C-alpha cells in the first residue's frame, strides 16, 4: 500500500477526478485505511472550491470599458 508521503505526491489528479483507474484504485486503497489523508483530500477540495468561488482578484464589469478605451487611445496615439 502507498505511504502517506507517496499518496500526497500523487493525489493531484485524484482531486480533480482525473486520475487513471489504476492510480485511483491505489489511492483509494490508501484512503480507506488513512483518516489523515481523507481529511487532507476533503479539505483540499474545499480549499479549491473556496478559492475558485472567490472574487478577490475580480475586476468589476463596469471597470472593463475604461481600460479598453485607454488602451485603444494609447495605441492610436502611438500610430499618429
Amino acid at each position, binding site marked *: 500500500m502507498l505511504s502517506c508521503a507517496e499518496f*500526497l505526491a500523487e*493525489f*493531484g*489528479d485524484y*482531486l480533480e477526478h482525473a486520475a487513471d483507474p489504476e492510480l485511483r484504485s491505489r489511492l483509494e486503497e490508501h484512503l480507506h485505511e488513512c*483518516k*489523515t489523508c*481523507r*481529511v*487532507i483530500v*476533503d*479539505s*483540499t477540495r*474545499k*480549499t*479549491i*472550491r*473556496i*478559492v*475558485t*468561488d*472567490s*472574487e*478577490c*482578484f*475580480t*475586476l468589476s*464589469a463596469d*471597470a*472593463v*470599458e475604461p*481600460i*479598453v478605451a*485607454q*488602451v*485603444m487611445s*494609447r*495605441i*492610436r496615439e502611438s*500610430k499618429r
Partner: protein
Amino acid sequence: MSRSPTTPREQLKHPQLVAAFGFVPNLFDAQGQLPRAIEAEERLIDAVVVCENRLSRPQKESLLCGVANVRKSDYCRALFGNAHPAASPEDSAILRFALKLAKQGPFVSGNDVEVLRGAGFEDAAILEAVVTTALGQMLCTLAEGLRPAVDSGLTPPLPVSLPELPESLDWIETPGPYLRSPARAADNFQPYSFLREAYGFVPNLYRGQSLRPDLVEAEVHALAQVLLPEDLLSRIQKEQILLSLSAANLNTYYVAMRGQILSAMGVSLEESDQIIEDHHHSRIPAPDKTLLDETRKLACLPARSDRWFEAAPLRAVGFTQPQIVEAVVMSALANFLNTLQAGLGTVPDFPPRRVFTAKDLYPPSGQARPTSDGAIADDPDAALVARVQNGETDAFEELVRRHTRRIFGTLAGLVGNMDDARDATQDVFLKAFENLGRFQGRSKFSTWLTSIAINTGTDILRQRRPSEPLEEVDQDEGFRPRQIQSWADNPEQVLNASQRDKLVKEAVLRLPEKYRVAVLLRDINQISTEEAAAALELSVPALKARLLRGRLMLRERLAEHFIAPEKGTADA
C-alpha cells in the same frame, strides 16, 4: 537597399555601413556601447553584401528582404526596402532556397542544393546565398533584441508575396558537406592559425568555405571581436548562449562543437547536456539561467516560442546594459553560424552526443503538434488576430475587451495592488499589440497574452525587490501538511463572502511566486492545465506539481478558519 542622406562624420566613421545602406542605421547606433561588435558586423556586411562576386547586389538584397519577411522584422523590412522581384526562374530558385533556410533551416538538405545546381548555380554562388541568408538572420536577430526605431524616412513596405514553400516538410538526411569545391586555403592561412590558437583545431565550417577566403576572414574576425573578449560577459557565458541557441535551432553540428569547447574550458559534457535539454535543471548560476531564458527567445527557428526577448529580466538579475547588448550580439552571431552550417551541411568535427531529428521539433508535453502553417486550429481569437496583423488596428479593441478581466485577475493576484494591476493590464495589451507581428499562432492568443501578463507581473515584483521580498523562502523541500483536522461540511457558511475573499487574497499573496502563478491560472482564472502549462512554458506534470503544492499551502493557511470544532483531531 534604401538610401538616405548621411552626415560626413558618419561616412568617416562607418564607411562600409554607408556603402551598404547609404547611411548609418539605428541598428548600429543601438550597439554604440560595443564598438568592437559594430566593427565586426560592418566587415561581414562588406564581405557578404557589398563585394559583388557570383551573385549580384540586387539578388542578395532580394534574399535579405526575404529573410526579413520570414522573421517578420519590420525594422529590417524597412531597412532592406522592397525586394527586387525574382526576375527569372534562377532568381526564384535561389530565393526559395534562402526562404527555406531562413524559415526551416534543419530541413535543408543536399537535395535543395542540387536543385540550385540544376538551376545553373555554381558552388561559389550557392555559398554566397547561404552566407547572405545567415547575415539576414543575424541582422534580424539584432533588430529583435535591440528594437531600434525604424530609421528616419523609412517605412516598412507592405508584406511581399514570397514563393511558397511546400506544405509538408520531410527531414531528409543527406551526407554533407553540400559544396563539392576542394579546400584551397593553405594551412598557414591567417584565420586558420587564429582558430587553431583559439580552439585547438580548424572547424570544418571554415574549411568548407575556402572558395571565399575573404568571407572566412570576416567570419573569424567576428568571432575574435564578439566571442573571445571577456570585458563584459565571460567567455563561458557566451559559449553557453551559443550552445543553448544551437540546441533551440536543432543544430547538431554546433551543439557537438560547443559542448567540446566548453569541456576544454572546464564545463563537463554532462553539464552541457543539461543546458541543451533544459538549462533550468543545470547547475549554472541563477542569473545565467535568466540569460539563457532570454537569449533562447532569439532563436532563428521560427516560433518555437511566441515570446520575445526582454532586457528587464536581465537588468533585474544584475546584467548591465553593455552586457545585455553583448548578449543580443552573441545570439545574432549564433544564429548566423547555425544558418551557415545548415545551408552548407557541414559535418561535425566531433562525434555528436546529441543528434537532433524531426521529433525534436515537437515538444513532448502533449502540446498540440502544429499544423503545416504552425497555427492552432481552434483559437476563437484567430480571426481578430489576423485582422490586426493585416493592419486593422480597430479589431484589437474587441480582443482587449474579451481578455481584460482575465488578464487583470492574473496581474492582481501577482502584484497584489489593484491600481498597479490596472496599469499593468494596459501595459500587457500595449506590449501584445506592439509584438503581434511576431505572434504566429502556435499557442492560443489567450495563452500568449497570459504569458505576457505573467512576465509583466513578475517584472513588477522584481522591481520591488529588495523592499518587498517575494517570499521565496523555501517551503519547497520537506513541505508536509500540518493541519489535519476535519473541516466544516459547508465552510462557505462559516464566513461571509467578503470575509472569505479577504482571507483568500491574503493567503494567495503569501504563496511563493511559482506556486501562486499556478493557482492563479488554474483556480482563479480557471484556464485548462494544458494552457496554464503552455503559458508558463512548463510541462504539464511540472505545472500539476506546482499547482498541488500551491493548493496544499493554501489549505494550510485557510484551515484554522474552517475547522469543524466538534470533529476533533484525526487519528494521525
